[in-house]
């Protein structure tokens, strides 16, 4: 088994390993460490420290981590942690070796990545506390708890892959357990759960079905290949969950086209229920953050982050816009012109933006705060326009894939990344800009900025649609 992995892997020689270590060290020392120090210093203020030390913090942590585990279970149903090369899947799935042996290594590699991500987040939070009170023991405890939480996250992810058809209910069960355990101290709760679920890993690896493993591996690798060459629309299309339920639900209704397309898009999205719920939840959180952005510390960062979250969440409801772009490039199949198709498919994400904004503002008002609908509107409307604009972007021009040789290596990747990142950057920029302008009392300017951005995006969208 080890020999097979060794033969299949692309091993570095000593010089390459030394260079990789050198680059990682330099990056950590001169890029990561100063960045982390700046973030920790920025977060070390009374509002953040009070929140971290509040009596409700342990409950919130237990709940949030538990909900993350539930989310990992849902994600695993479509994109599990074990995604080796498709030929290897055929090899391992077709032999008489137990899957707990054949798939252990790729799972452990992914699990290590998950744990590392948790550790990084915990180091940031723990770092804020350590910088304030110098309590090293508490810092180490936070790190240990994050390792345990990361372990459970990885196993929950594998659980979704091992039982994809029950993942929805399993995730709900995990979420319910998180709620029930909310009164436990997080570290103790994680210490109880992590060893128990770790014992289940061999059983879960054995339970992964070959066809499911192959389908997920093919999807991941197709997406990775297309993403490498800048075709992120196709890459994300490969990764997007496919509907399996609700085939008898009524997705078409009579009446005007606007209603028919909106209902078809929303019912279609509801057929990937986990995706719908995640998108709705994230959009509601983003709207809530925008509603309180005016009075919040770091309003600019919060506004940018919330706009980015709204951009990502709205993507769930924009399948229709992507379909309109695909249709627009072909001889007429639907009886509507491409521009009209874009307008019809824009209704569903607009409805969801309105609904989630209304929900967030209502909940905040009931909770006794004073939510401000203006930043919500001034950010969500441009973000909707960004989504439509991004859907009609098309494929990356071949010229941008040309190698850019420099003494530091080929920098064509930077060109591709800058081409890819325009939509999220515009979204985050609008969110941050609007939040900052409102915070300094320049309400009229904020309205003008929102309107100008929407106008420019719509003009650019018209050009893009004509080119499809």
């Amino acid at each position, binding site marked *: 088994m080890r020999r097979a992995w060794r033969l299949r892997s692309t091993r570095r020689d000593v010089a390459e390993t030394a260079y990789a270590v050198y680059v990682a060290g330099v990056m950590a020392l001169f890029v990561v460490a100063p960045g982390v120090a700046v973030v920790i210093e920025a977060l070390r203020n009374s509002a953040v420290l009070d929140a971290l030390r509040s009596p409700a913090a342990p409950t919130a942590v237990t709940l949030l981590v538990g909900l993350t585990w539930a989310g990992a279970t849902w994600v695993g149903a479509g994109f599990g942690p074990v995604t080796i090369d498709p030929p290897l899947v055929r090899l391992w799935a077709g032999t008489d070796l137990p899957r707990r042996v054949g798939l252990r290594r790729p799972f452990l590699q992914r699990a290590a990545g998950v744990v590392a991500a948790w550790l990084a987040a915990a180091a940031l939070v723990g770092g804020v506390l350590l910088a304030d009170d110098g309590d090293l023991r508490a810092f180490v405890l936070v790190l240990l708890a994050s390792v345990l939480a990361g372990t459970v996250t990885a196993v929950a992810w594998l659980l979704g892959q091992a039982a994809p058809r029950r993942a929805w209910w399993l995730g709900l069960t995990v979420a319910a357990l998180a709620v029930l355990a909310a009164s436990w101290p997080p570290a103790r709760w994680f210490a109880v759960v992590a060893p128990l679920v770790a014992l289940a890993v061999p059983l879960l690896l054995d339970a992964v079905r070959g066809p499911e493993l192959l389908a997920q591996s093919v999807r991941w690798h197709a997406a990775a290949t297309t993403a490498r060459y800048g075709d992120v629309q196709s890459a994300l299309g490969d990764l997007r969950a496919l509907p399996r339920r609700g*085939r008898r639900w009524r997705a078409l209704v009579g009446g005007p086209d606007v209603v028919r397309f909106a209902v078809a898009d929303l019912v*279609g999205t509801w057929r990937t229920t986990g995706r719908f719920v995640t998108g709705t939840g994230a959009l509601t959180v983003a709207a809530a953050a925008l509603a309180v952005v005016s009075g919040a510390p770091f309003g600019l960062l919060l506004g940018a982050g919330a706009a980015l979250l709204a951009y990502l969440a709205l993507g769930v409801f924009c399948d229709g816009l992507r379909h309109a772009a695909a249709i627009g490039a*072909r001889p007429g199949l*639907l009886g509507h012109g491409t521009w009209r198709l874009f307008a019809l498919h824009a209704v569903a994400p607009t409805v969801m933006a309105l609904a989630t904004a209304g929900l967030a503002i209502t909940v905040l008002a009931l909770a006794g705060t004073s939510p401000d609908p203006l930043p919500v509107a001034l950010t969500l409307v441009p973000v909707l326009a960004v989504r439509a604009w991004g859907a009609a972007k098309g494929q990356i021009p071949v010229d941008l894939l040309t190698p850019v040789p420099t003494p530091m290596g080929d920098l064509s990747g930077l060109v591709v990344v800058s081409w890819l990142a325009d939509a999220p950057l515009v979204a985050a920029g609008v969110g941050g800009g609007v939040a900052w302008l409102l915070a300094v009392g320049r309400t009229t300017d904020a309205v003008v900025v929102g309107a100008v951005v929407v106008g420019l995006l719509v003009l650019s969208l018209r050009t893009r649609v004509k080119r499809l």
Partner: protein
Amino acid sequence: MRIDDAPLLPPVTFDLEHGRTLAVTGPNGSGKTTLLRVLAGVQPPSGGDVSVLGAAPDERSPTVRAGVAALLDPPPLSRSLVLAEYLALVGTSWGLELDPAIDQAEDLLAELGIAALAHRFPHELSSGQRQLYGLTLVLARPCTLLILDEPEQRLDPDRLELVARALERRKAAGTTLVLASHSPTLVAHLADERLELDEASALAER
């Protein structure tokens, strides 16, 4: 038809009257698909004159989009609608009310022998079923000129017979049909006229 200096299609001349069927035949690389793309208005010709339904073909023109239906590649499908729903959506987009559009969708699926797939999602289809579904989609919309590029792809003889009969019905209803095909069955069933493209002519142009 050329891209830069590379010829894709040698000069061809033909007239096709309304309601007639033209079968374009020839080996791979002889320019069949290019000719169909020009007729569908997807690719402008680099020389010569082309007139379809009385105008230069351009798929951006609403008149051309309304009159010309074409299946040149697998059409983009809605990933979250089942086959019958998307077919009905295509029907309603051309002015049908919902109930007649649903009836038409069921009839089309039955006509090509895939009624049992009405509630499947597109990703649940085999490649042959996808080809049949693509044909139902292009048949779901009204048109004066129907352009099909190798509709026989990935179809077994029985399905091919169904497709031939379905196209014969469109032809009898007055639809003008241009198809590129390697299938003697389809050509024998449908063609009133035949245009044989020669790979040698295309090469000679180089």
